[in-house]
């Protein structure tokens, strides 16, 4: 299996090629007749959405959306957080009824009252958060609610045979795990169980709601293989994502939503990432490395010979040394699962280090609790916002108190000053453009991007001296990424030491003053981002030391404006 960075590089290359061949606008109307691609049935489209409008109160979530999915293809639905992708698919899956418009399956108009109706009509949905019962086996999960019975009892033998035949048809490896409890499986396998569950219920159309958000790069590659196998067998897929390179890699056509309306539908091999980004955001988005005017100062964070074990007792960080200076962004790149999470948790105080030193402003902080580290000025944007960064059931006021329970002026002795906290929440909402701008909104009602902006705002407004940002733009749309990056640069220029961990190479390349590449718990190398190409970094992420640091390759790239994985136009 190829390392994920190569996959990215390939995708970027494809884009570059296609952009050369592109003569004029490749936008086509969703209603325009497309070529019939191996469709043998009378109806050419597996799914047609015609003028779908869905309102929630005054908010128009979908505004006259047209979309048609050809049989046996992958149709990507892209758009920023809150563009209306999930609402549209919830209409198709019977969770919402549209206020206007018509849904047609195989050319026949349908009205779904519930997901059960959609499943009966052959529409399945793979949710971002899996709908599996953890303590039950794979077989039990697949047949749950649709159990085959023999004389009143669940006929497990026939269920097993059916699942095995599905697995062999699509080349899935899941039949190995039929008697394994779901909680013991990796995320990628769980996702395939979800897919099999839908297929078992006879789904012809599968909706995948941001399926890659929870996957590692290798698992993403495996998922794309699965998707290709499904379309080869005549299934039709709707692939919801906001990652453009993924849409371009796996989809046949791409529909772009913005503010609830369709901006356009394009053939995947006739567009570029830049064009899609422009359609999505409504303006040019330029991600480029900017020369900085300030210079790093004194060392702030010194980590030496750090070793950290994970929950299972395995050593995940194996002797790491580095220093982050004031006003410096120290980036840590790497494929997820190579010890970055444990490194960050050890620095922020969520996990005790096995051995080694963590010094902050000359003081040893390795023995301090998480709360004490917050109090000494360590801010932390966590990698998993739903788990750690916010409490979904709290409103934004109460979320603004998270981590500030002992910080003045929000805490006054034993008591919390809710007035001050409310003002703080309003200030974050205002300054970081959190939508909806209502501090009493429940945090979980916000889109992922807005949740992230709130967290970033709360952490940066602590006026920290060290900021640990772990995947600060994960799951965030392009416009918000740009915003968060700007804020990180401002912090850096204000003299804050920033430890940035990201699995997105372009992000690390864009922001870091120095980049460490982490592999199997160790730093492969620490390099100057200007001196390496993404290909070289990719090799280092796979564990290969580059030897001479890769300064030779520099002649290809303009210094100070490193091309960032095709996010901007070449």
């Amino acid at each position: 299996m190829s390392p994920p960075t190569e996959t990215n590089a390939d995708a970027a290359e494809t884009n570059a090629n296609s952009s050369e061949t592109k003569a004029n606008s490749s936008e086509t109307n969703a209603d325009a007749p497309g070529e019939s691609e191996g469709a043998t049935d009378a109806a050419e489209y597996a799914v047609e959405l015609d003028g779908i409008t869905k309102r929630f109160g005054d908010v128009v979530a979908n505004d006259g959306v047209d979309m048609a999915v050809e049989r046996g293809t992958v149709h990507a639905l892209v758009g920023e957080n809150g563009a209306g992708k999930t609402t549209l698919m919830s209409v198709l899956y019977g969770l919402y009824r549209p206020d206007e418009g018509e849904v047609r399956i195989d050319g026949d108009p349908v009205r779904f009252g519930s997901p059960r109706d959609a499943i009966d009509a052959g529409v399945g949905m793979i949710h971002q958060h899996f709908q599996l019962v953890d303590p039950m086996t794979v077989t039990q999960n697949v047949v749950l609610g649709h159990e085959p019975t023999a004389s009143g009892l669940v006929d497990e033998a026939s269920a097993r045979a059916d699942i095995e035949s599905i697995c062999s048809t699509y080349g899935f490896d899941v039949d190995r795990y039929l008697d394994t409890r779901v909680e013991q499986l990796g995320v990628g396998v769980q996702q395939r169980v979800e897919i099999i569950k839908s297929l078992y219920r006879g789904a012809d159309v599968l909706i995948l709601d941001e399926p890659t958000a929870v996957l590692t790069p290798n698992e993403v590659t495996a998922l794309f293989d699965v998707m290709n196998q499904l379309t080869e067998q005549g299934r039709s897929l709707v692939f919801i994502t906001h990652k453009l390179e993924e849409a371009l890699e796996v989809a046949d056509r791409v529909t772009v939503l913005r503010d609830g309306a369709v901006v356009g539908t394009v053939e995947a091999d006739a567009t570029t990432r830049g064009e899609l980004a422009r359609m999505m955001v409504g303006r040019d988005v330029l991600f480029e490395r900017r020369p900085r005017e300030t210079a790093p100062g004194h060392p702030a964070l010194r980590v030496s010979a750090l070793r950290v074990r994970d929950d299972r007792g395995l050593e995940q960080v194996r002797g790491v040394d580095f220093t982050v200076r004031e006003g410096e962004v120290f980036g840590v790149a790497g494929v997820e699962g190579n010890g970055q999470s444990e490194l960050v948790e050890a620095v922020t105080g969520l996990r005790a280090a096995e051995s080694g030193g963590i010094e902050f402003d000359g003081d040893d902080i390795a023995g301090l609790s998480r709360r004490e580290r917050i109090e000494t000025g360590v801010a932390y944007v966590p990698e998993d916002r739903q788990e750690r960064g916010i409490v979904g059931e709290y409103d934004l006021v109460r979320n603004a108190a998270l981590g500030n329970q002992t910080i003045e002026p929000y805490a006054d002795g034993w008591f919390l000053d809710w007035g001050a906290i409310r003002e703080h929440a309003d200030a974050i909402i205002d300054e970081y453009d959190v939508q909806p701008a209502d501090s009493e909104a429940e945090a979980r009602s916000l889109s992922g991007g807005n949740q992230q902006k709130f967290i970033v705002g709360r952490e940066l407004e602590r006026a920290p001296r060290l900021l640990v940002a772990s995947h600060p733009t994960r799951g965030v749309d392009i416009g918000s990424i740009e915003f968060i990056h700007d804020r990180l640069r401002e912090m850096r220029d204000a003299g804050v030491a920033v430890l940035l961990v990201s699995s997105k190479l372009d992000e690390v390349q864009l922001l870091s003053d120095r980049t460490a590449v982490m592999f199997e718990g160790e730093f492969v190398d620490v390099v100057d981002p200007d001196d390496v190409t993404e290909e070289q970094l990719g090799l280092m992420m796979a564990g290969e030391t580059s030897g001479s640091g890769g300064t030779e390759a520099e002649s290809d790239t303009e210094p100070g404006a490193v091309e960032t994985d095709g996010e901007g136009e070449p």
Partner: protein
Amino acid sequence: MSGTAGGARAALDRAADRMVDATAVERFVIAVASTALALAFGAVVVAVSGYDAVEFMSALLYGAVGNLQNVAFTLRQSTMLVLAGVAVAVAFRAGVFNIGVQGQFVVGGFATTLTILFLAPHLPRGTVGGVLLMLFGTVAAVIAGGAYAAVPGVMKAYADANEVITTIMLNFIANGVVFYLIDGSLRPPGTSSPNTPSFPDYVGLPPFAFGSSSFSVIGLGVALLAVAVVYVVVARTGFGYDLVTSGYQESAAAYSGVDPKRMVVATMTFSGMIAGVCGALFAIMILGYYTDPATFPRFGFDAIAVSLLAANNPLGVVPAGLLFGGLDAGGQYIGFTLDVPAELIDGIVGIVVLFVATPELFRIAGRFGGLGGGRE
């Protein structure tokens, strides 16, 4: 087929939405209306069972609030249920299931008893001595209840022992050990029942208006004060925020600087301290001595229902405790006066609880279960 299913679902969604949006006043009105509806429904059940429904219902009402003595009994039961209910609610809010309030209550009351009996010879007789004995006794109950609850807390935090199981087991242990000590060492010579000696007669709470030997307004005041303290701690302090956040999302609490293990121990201790106050009041206000805990009312278990009815809100525990106290008093009165099977009384009480709890269940379902339309 799908039409009717969809319609039913839509009706449920609407109900959940209305319950989620209901204000405190609306919810109170709903609760009162539910009680009335439940009593009407219960009357039908009683009549169908072949008993006099009017007599049954008037006895239930009379037993709860019919005369001063009955009101006193209702308030006495309510006082206990409110205190035990707050103890349960605090733990549940933090996501810790303290099923051991009964045991902590037993241990707390026993600590009060020991303190009063052993200190009484060393303190002056009379009112001052009585007040001092009661204060020391209550402090001892708070410490003992907290410590007894800390044990399962430590076991959960540091040895991963499920607190539901350990607290239930510790209830039995509390009963057994307390009985053993009373029967073996504290029973006055020559008596046959497993009772401790009575407290000195200057230990006890003045009955004030009610003239009851087992209820005092001061006891109710202590319970309400405990509710107020818990409410302030939960809503206004950093500790309360840590506690509630741990209940909602432990990983977010850890991120914000809470040590999850210590939090579990602290929560259990806090809960057990309140249960200890309940035990102290039971020993001082109601018994005036101590006896075999197996004969005690099961306040610690009824408190779980009280807390759930109050949606684990400390303030909500007060009306919920009053309702349960009234039903308990009324039910006991029926048991003494009417020739009605105990099961029927329990059944009617159960109907009332069910009717009152249902709107709250809708609220909880609407808020956490995804019932209710248009909420993402």
